[in-house]
């Protein structure tokens, strides 16, 4: 059902009922937006997308105006431009003038809007709303002076993540984003997933930056700085350094970190493979038939915290393992130090991760060993890129290098954990081996790789079946759990990733992101696996050595002491 629109004198076709914005975008026309988000119903709050429609008294918001009949409209008439400009100026009149010092300098939507609208002076004076910066959370900093109240974080937190940590509070000129009773973030039900700061157009929500601390350790000769980076970092940091999305920089990162001053560099993928070994063992020992729920992964710290807060009854079904970065960290402290004859207290263990929740996780009591935190610092992909630029390191001059021994993993099972579904896939490979004594051809599981938030597959392993599933995005997880609870769905192994599409779209990843970029990142991870030669954790020689020399058997005494943990119900305001 085509409806004719005349836009700035040009004729285009629209579908009845769709919004003006959709019609414009489909025809390659652009109007600025702030509050509108793909896949969310329009809220019409920011008024940035206003256009002039003939016959209407006021300007109309393109994002929420449904097309019912032919319209004549102008998207960039002087009237429209003046309105947009004035509205941005109004926003700026309540915005600090500190772009140069802002985390989001260069990636801020407000900045580029004012640039586009040619705003060159502060024409509207005024007092600014006073707000204290909330730095209570180890992961997320909330600076409401920079908030433009678009509501994107609120909607993401509610609709995508089912957490509803944030909502609007008060009204009028006191309107602000707030947790329940305005508690500091650290005392709220925030899971630190970081999706809100990906959604935030400005510097109001940012990660708790730790790389300046790293600087001091690097230059302290008494410290041995040991770094590990996660698989998702390797395929996305390139974007922020001007490379094509999806460029895999694994080897280069090893080189660049060493050049920068890290004493040893490892991959978190190694810890992931240890986790897979243990998880396969746990699966094996679990009497699945008597359980209502599948064995649920616990590698995603935001997910774990979510369960502890909202679904404590699921804790017994979580696999009682620490996350890959924690596992790598603990092996550094307990095995690597022994091999290298290093003093534990001189070690600074640094994680480079796509995940903001990893920053919170590093501070958790359960993640300490004998009271000492295993990880000292967590920096995100974005911070890594800044660190590289900060130190003037030129990637073009570097050749790929291998990680340090003894964690130089040549396997790709651990790398797979970078994408949603990867952990399940890699775990099933090892479970299959345990059940049948044979290895499953990797291609057998490729059907599991379609780009969907929930997917499942049943794998025949001899006389057994493994019903595996993966879900990403906490809201999707909640919906799935409901199906499982009501008995509509039966699974044996379930991987849950808090962030939609898993770690490739983690809260610490380069900005801006869109669906296409995420797909390229995921594809890069799959390409690594496809191109590798050792696809399973149990075949990885480095893992074998670890078990032979240090851990003994999976599920044995040493692993239980070091690698396992317990989760407990968390009392917060839900």
């Amino acid at each position, binding site marked *: 059902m085509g409806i004719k629109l005349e836009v700035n004198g040009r004729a285009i076709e629209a579908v009845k009922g769709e919004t003006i914005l959709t019609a414009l975008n489909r025809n390659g026309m652009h109007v600025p937006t702030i509050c509108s988000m793909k896949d969310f119903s329009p809220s*019409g709050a920011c008024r940035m997308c206003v256009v002039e429609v003939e016959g209407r008294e006021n300007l109309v918001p393109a994002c929420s105006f449904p097309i019912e009949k032919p319209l004549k409209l102008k998207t960039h008439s002087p009237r429209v431009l003046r*309105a947009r400009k004035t509205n941005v100026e109004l926003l700026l009149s309540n915005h600090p003038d500190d772009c140069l010092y802002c985390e989001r300098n260069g990636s801020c939507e407000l900045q580029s809007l004012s640039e586009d609208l040619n705003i060159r002076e502060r024409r509207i004076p005024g007092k600014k709303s006073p707000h204290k910066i909330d730095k209570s959370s180890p992961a997320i900093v909330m600076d409401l002076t920079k908030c433009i109240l678009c509501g994107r974080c609120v909607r993401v937190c509610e609709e995508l993540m089912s957490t509803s940590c944030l909502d609007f509070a008060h009204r009028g000129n006191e*309107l602000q984003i707030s947790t329940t009773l305005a508690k500091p973030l650290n005392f709220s039900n925030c899971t630190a997933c970081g999706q809100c700061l990906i959604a935030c157009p400005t510097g109001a929500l940012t990660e708790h930056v730790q790389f300046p601390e790293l600087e001091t350790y690097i230059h302290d000769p008494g410290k041995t700085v040991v770094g590990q980076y996660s698989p998702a970092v390797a395929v996305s940091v390139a974007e922020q350094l001007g490379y094509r999305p999806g460029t895999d920089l694994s080897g280069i990162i090893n080189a660049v970190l060493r050049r920068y001053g890290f004493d040893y560099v490892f991959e978190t993928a190694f810890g992931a493979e240890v986790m897979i070994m243990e998880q396969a063992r746990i699966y094996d020992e679990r009497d699945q038939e008597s359980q209502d729920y599948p064995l649920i992964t616990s590698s995603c710290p935001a997910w774990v915290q979510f369960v502890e807060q909202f679904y404590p009854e699921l804790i017994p079904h979580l696999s009682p393992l620490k996350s890959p970065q924690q596992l790598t960290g603990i092996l550094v402290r307990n095995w690597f130090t022994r091999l290298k004859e290093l003093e534990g207290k001189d070690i600074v263990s640094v994680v480079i991760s796509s995940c903001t929740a990893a920053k919170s996780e590093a501070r958790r009591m359960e993640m300490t060993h004998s009271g000492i935190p295993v990880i000292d610092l967590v920096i995100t992909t974005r911070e890594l890129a800044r660190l590289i630029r900060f130190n003037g390191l030129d990637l073009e001059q570097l050749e790929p290098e291998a990680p340090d021994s003894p964690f130089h993993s040549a396997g790709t099972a651990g790398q797979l954990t970078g994408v949603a579904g990867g952990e399940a896939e890699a775990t099933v490979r090892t479970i299959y081996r345990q059940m049948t004594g044979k290895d499953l051809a990797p291609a057998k599981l490729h059907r599991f790789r379609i780009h969907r938030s929930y997917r499942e597959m049943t794998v025949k392993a001899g006389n057994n079946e493994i019903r595996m599933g993966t879900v990403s995005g906490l809201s999707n997880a909640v919906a799935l759990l409901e199906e499982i609870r009501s008995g509509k769905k039966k699974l044996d192994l379930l991987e849950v990733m808090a962030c939609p599409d898993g770690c490739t779209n983690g809260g610490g990843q380069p900005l801006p992101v869109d669906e296409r970029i995420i797909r390229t990142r995921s594809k890069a991870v799959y390409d690594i696996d496809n191109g590798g030669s050792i696809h399973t954790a149990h075949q990885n020689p480095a893992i074998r050595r670890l078990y032979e020399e240090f851990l003994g058997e999976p599920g044995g005494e040493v692993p239980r002491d070091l690698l396992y943990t317990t989760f407990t119900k968390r009392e917060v305001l839900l």
Partner: protein
Amino acid sequence: MLPDKSFLLKLAQSDPSELSALEREKVAFLNRERLTRPLVMVNSSTSGTVAGAKETWEAIEQYVADRSIEIDLRESGSIGLSSEEPVISVQLPERTRVFFSRVTADKVSSVLDDLFHQVIPDQMLIGQLRREGQVPWNDVSYLDEIPFFALQQRIVMEECGIIDPFSFGEYVARSGYEAFLKIIRSYTFSEVCDLVTRSGLRGRSGGGFPAGKKWKVAFDTPSDQKYLICNAEESDPGAFMDRTLMEGNPFQLLEGISIAAYAIGSNRAYIYIRSEYKDAIRRIDNAIWQLREMGLLGDNILDSGYNLQISLRKGPGAFVCGEETALIASLEGRRGMPCSKPPYPSTAGYLGRPTVVNNVETLSNLPGIIRNGPEWFRGIGLEDCTGTKIFSISGRVRISGLVEVPMGTTFDTIVNDIIGGVNKGRELKALHVGGPLGCMVPVEMMNIPVSFENMKSRDLVLGSGGILVMDDRTCVVNTVRYFMDYVDKQSCGKCIPCREGTRRMAEILGSITRKPADEEQYSTLERFKGVMQLENMAEVMKDTSLCGLGQNAPNPVLSTLKYFRQEYEEHIFDRKCPSNTCTELRSWFIDVDMCTGCSICAKRCPVEAIIGTARHPYFIVQEKCTGCGICYDVCKFTAVYYK
């Protein structure tokens, strides 16, 4: 205690001529044409209570108890004379009813003493109510002869302040529920829509949207459930017509709601009322209960097959919740933030279903329209704007209160003739019409015949009908700043132009009405920058805001910039407030002849702007003075004056 149900239902459905003599007699008692003992009514609605009606009530009880007089003491609503409260009315058997104003507790015995001796005290007297078959008092003017009432045409407020708002019987005896029973018996849903469309009734909340047309859209939208919402939020400060209607004649509103709900085919109606309106809530609650008992609400009303539930919901207080989409959000249990229209509530409103939102006054018009026919209604008011409109008038006036006049009446008639103009010795300067989102009408334009179009064509708005009268001692800029401050606090904050725009405009207006502590280059520059932006901001707000609040918030500014520019300029350039109301612009001086040098002012001045030596005249350093006026307050010798 409920009157005889079957009798009342019969009464509501029959012509008086069909009644037997005995039945007619019964009606006469019900509508208080005939009495067995003296009737005393006290306006116990909010305006009365504030003025002490409760104490008056107690004094009356005490009075009759002391003298063992049997009377019928009843609560009533307000007859619209808010500044003259407490208003009471007394009706002796056989005689007409007489109204008195300002009867505070201490006046009770003198008024009643006289009356019970068949003497009319001339103090406090308002007038007598014209009713056939009752003996009038000599030398007492009828209400409809005194200017306040004579020039009004009360069709919606006809019974306000006269009937007992708790008595369903009295309402029915005064032709109540005739209309509703007529339509559920003999009209289809869409016939009612058509009938109301033909009457030309338009929404009374300000927009002037034709009621019948809105109903038709909702009626034509297929849905399993439709809702009718009566908007009784009346959020506009200074407006009190809806409250008075609810307090004075709740059954009329409920009948109107029933008619509208029937017209759109809805079985579910809500009244969204401000929680502060305790008195109105009490009366409506009572009325709903009585109607249920009567079988006029509930399932299968009088075997017509039509079901209707009406529930009362208390609005927790936010101006913007008067806006229909915000109101719906609030009913749904959300923050009262408006949504973009389209879709309009009439197609997708409460819980996503077709919903009609109408104002109290609009709905209260319906029983009359159905009873007397659309042609009767068309005969009142203007061609394109039929019927009457109620205005609530307050501010610097002799009488503040409610005035119901036909559309097309001029402001001049309303303010000068009906209300009696401003206080003695003062001069009328302007009318602020329509509350915080309204506009300022200068004296020269007082002869506009009031209607939605006539206002619009002059870039003015009618709003819901609050009129704030300003005399020469009120400052236009300061009043506009007050409204802008108010709107700034009341904006929901959802959209940028309204949230940030109202704040900036309030700040800029504030900076005009205040002398800065130090008039430095920088702050002067900032101030001027702001003033330059006022008009631009106002226009963009109008053009881009999401809801009516932001779209209309600039009205006071735009209308005053147009008609009172001079006064702005005096504030801005001369730093002077012509009416001397902007305290912070005043310059204070000490009269050397009056000053005794007591030094109290110098001690109390918060900025140490007053210098001098004891027992000699003191002196105010103008550069330091912030204009607070404390010296004026503390000086015992009236030596301090301002210019």
